[in-house]
């Protein structure tokens, strides 16, 4: 199987496919994260962003 993958990757179509798959993964990840954080609850976010100020020594 590995030999087949290696053989396919060595071909022009294989390498072009690698570029396309990588780009699709990238955009899917990016869009997925944007949608996800948009839906996060605001109250929780406000607590988390204030963590550095829980230290009274500074």
């Amino acid at each position, binding site marked *: 199987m590995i030999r087949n993958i*290696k053989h396919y*990757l*060595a071909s022009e179509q294989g*390498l*072009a496919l*690698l*570029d396309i798959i*990588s*780009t699709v993964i*990238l955009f899917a*990840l*990016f869009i997925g*994260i*944007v949608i*996800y*954080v*948009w839906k*996060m*609850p605001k109250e*929780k*976010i*406000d607590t*988390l*962003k*204030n*963590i*550095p*100020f*829980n*230290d009274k*020594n*500074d």
Partner: protein
Amino acid sequence: MEKEKFYYDDKVVKMFAWATVVWGVTAFTIGLMVAYLYWFPHYMDGISWLSYGRLRPLHTNSAIFAFVGNGIFAGAYYSTQRLLKTRMASDLLSRLHFWGWQLVILLAAITLPLGITQSKEYAELEWPIDLLVAVVWVIFTVNLLWTIQKRRVRHIYVAIWFYISTAVTIAMLYIFNNLSLPVSMWKSYSIYAGVEDAVVQWWYGHNAVAFFLTTPILGLMYYFVPKAAQRPIYSYRLSIIHFWTLIFIYIWAGPHHLLYSPVPEWAQILGTIFSFTLIFPSWGGMINGLLTLRGAWDKVREDPILKMFVVAITSYGMSTFEGPMLSFKSLNAIAHFTDWIVAHVHVGTLGWNGFIVMGMLYWMIPRLYKTKIYSVKLINQHFWWGTIGLLLYVIPLYVAGWTQFLMWRQFNPDGSLKYPEFMDTVTEILPMHYLRAIGGTLYLTGALFMVYNLWKTVKGRKVEDTAAEAAPLEPVPAKRAKGEDFHNWLERRGMLFTVLAFIATAIGGAVEIIPTIFVDENIPKIEAVKPYTPLEIVGRDIYVREGCYVCHSQMIRPFRFEVERYGEYSKAGEYVYDHPFQWGSKRTGPDLFREGGKRPNLWHFSHIYEPESVMDGSIMPNYQWIVKNDYDASDIQTKMKALRKLGAPYTDEEIADAPRKLAEQAKAIAADLEANGVKKTPAYLEAYKGQEVDLSKKEVVALIAYLQRLGTDTTKKKETAQK
């Protein structure tokens, strides 16, 4: 739950902070010594360990690993303890980390000037020091992850995510890029050759910028900017997008350093796509940093620390806009190998890294010593000297970069190069180099104000560990609670977070590097290309030792103006015996890939001794010791055996016969030099003071052998065919 009392380990923070100050001034000073060599090329003549090729790697290593590195650790130790409400997990590991890191720096400061180098940019340190770096890095990582495990705060704040990604990714990058086969205590050959070595090196080189000079500095930004501005980060949501997309994308971008090279086209395309998209998370981070100051700009007017942070974040924005633009082939064609890249790099290091780290020191050191800063006025002075110095440094180099490119590609109407002498393009931009040296001087002067100011601040005071209290964490199920948000859940699962961060960074590296190395078709073999002869190996090792790659590239791009100037463009198969590759990244001098056979041996002899004697106006320093010293070929057979293990097809007979072959080739070159009147040259007369010497034993002969071989394997074949 009842609160527990504990103490933050501020002593280790203090140690790293002062190491940052000391190494910062050292790194800037070495940088200036290098910059002034463009103005006064001979002010350190005759001192091999202060030559350009050896000092420049010392400058980059000290700036990156000594100055910024210690700054990162100081800030990370300070903020991690406070964000997690716990002392660092192990005082012993903290101290081992500190002293181990200083030992690495000290060894680098000794070995690099001695010419002990792997000659891979930002990865010059030889294998014993690499091993030490790996051990120290593991100590740091274990201490960090252990501290995260024993924290008293449920959620891990964004700054620490960036520290985690730094810890795991740098370990991966450093180990894979530095895999080499030792031939002696201070000499090794990279296990990768040519194109493979280039891909792995720039995967590392680009991500040293990403995961050593960016992600940890972003961690510092996410902690110290809100603290200094006394307001929370603008958007926590944006920081989540920033973190995950940045670490995922950054690792793929390395091949943009290799556009128009023999690296496979698909890898170059991937590099370009991911470099371009990098602008989104990078600018997301920059906007997040700057908008944290929303509503606090009146403070920025009065607080020089905030001013420094603003310049730092703006510099980050500028260099992360420039980076993606430079990954487009059309713009890369202009900027690559020119001073533009040097300007780009210094916007990042002097502007982004320098000002964040120094702003952080001004904020943190008075708090460590429980006092106030000695002089706010002096911080203001530092800010202005540093900012003006930065501008005076980079603007002339942008102009120099454009000038170089325009002159290199200029043709006459008859199709010949308008500036066939590379030297013309060097002398044209010298005024820009003078200005950048002045800019660097201003920047260093600002840093000296800081040293004085901090010294006066802490004089007569001691750092005592700061007392704190917090309730221990109540145990909760590791599983996600009903209705618990995924990322909130992830933020309380330190180890899982670390594993996911590692996977996010490992994917890109695997996709780019594994096919390059294991798919043979990526590097078509060329029958005519043969391994180096024993004398050429010795010569190549001298070339590596002297750091020639910092000024001379060995990679001809497929442009008419490059082919016209240097010869046939480079092919992947021509580098298969190059351990390590020597493509370089900047041309202060001309490309040498097809230097072989272009000039007589005698020219090289005189040029190495005193470049100006054969090249009017040359700013290359004299490399007289190469002419004076005998080469050491006692380990040539060990070297050939090592290279054979790495793929060079030397037979047992060739290895056994190596000393004789080496002497034979050396004698032939020495005889040629003598036949052409070397004994009457000023170089010979001055170097040997009238004494009879055996030229065939001199390093210069080995270096000439290597230079005369460069790029000739394929061109010789062509010439034969033409005949």
